[in-house]
């Protein structure tokens, strides 16, 4: 998120090398449970040891950008992959297209940034 904690930064949405962005299907879950699932993604690595916030993304925001959310429940229950990222034979163009999508998501007013009262850390 940005320093003012008002918006997620575009890179929060950039897909990893396997082109499957990991998210959680949180519809219907109480707040506490959403953070509990988030804890499953934490490790001891610097930068991966706490959660400072999350972005709640309605599926329609993804569909609008021709992305798809596929719930696969792996490696944990409710795990979902965002797929359908634009491809191009030109790597520069591929990155441009994907950055433009990530910028759209970061600026979408339907996507809410949720900040916990204190950072979420790993349970010992």
């Amino acid at each position, binding site marked *: 998120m940005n320093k003012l904690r*008002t*918006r997620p930064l575009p890179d929060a949405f950039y897909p990893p090398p396997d082109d499957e962005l990991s998210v959680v299907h949180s519809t219907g879950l109480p707040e506490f449970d959403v953070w509990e699932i988030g804890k499953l993604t934490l490790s001891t690595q610097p930068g991966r040891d706490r959660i400072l916030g999350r972005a709640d993304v309605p599926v329609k925001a993804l569909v609008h950008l021709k992305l798809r959310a596929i719930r696969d429940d792996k490696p944990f229950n409710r795990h979902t992959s965002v797929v359908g990222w634009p491809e191009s034979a030109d790597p520069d163009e591929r990155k441009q297209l994907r950055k433009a999508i990530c910028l759209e998501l970061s600026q979408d007013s339907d996507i809410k940034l949720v900040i916990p009262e204190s950072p979420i850390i790993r349970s010992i």
Partner: protein
Amino acid sequence: MTTMEATFEGMSGLIVPARSTAQSDPAKKLDAMLEMIREHRLKSYVMRGPVERVLTELGEVCAEASKEGWDGYGARPLDPASYDFAIRFLNALPTYAPLPEVSADIDGEIALDWIFGQRKALTVSIGPTGRCTYAWMLGQSTNRGTDWIDDEIPANIVFALGQLARATASKQAR
């Protein structure tokens, strides 16, 4: 309001590097003088302080993203050449431009982001060859492209920053 004040912390409203192509001796002397003034102002504490802070953040990002898989999802380590180009980029920013948020891309590049307001934003990735991949939006208009850093920041990115700064300033003035 708070958002704008903080976002524009690095804004100064001063001068950008001269882009003159004039070849006469007086024109060259004038260019040299303008550059001296610009460098002098950039070295002042007021101008330099915010840039130094961003450069420090860049160093922290670099340290955090220096190992393979730093994001927990197989990200590539940050390329030292990307880091060097990012420093060049930040040092060459027009003085009217606010300073960006700094982060690492999962492909080893440096990401610089400017959020001017709702649907007024620019994102730039700087790669190890000085390649800048960017996307920016102003209202309903979205633009993207690729360009390279040479002695200056790519003109398209300077243009985007100018458009976004102008749009934000005119909204504030209303």
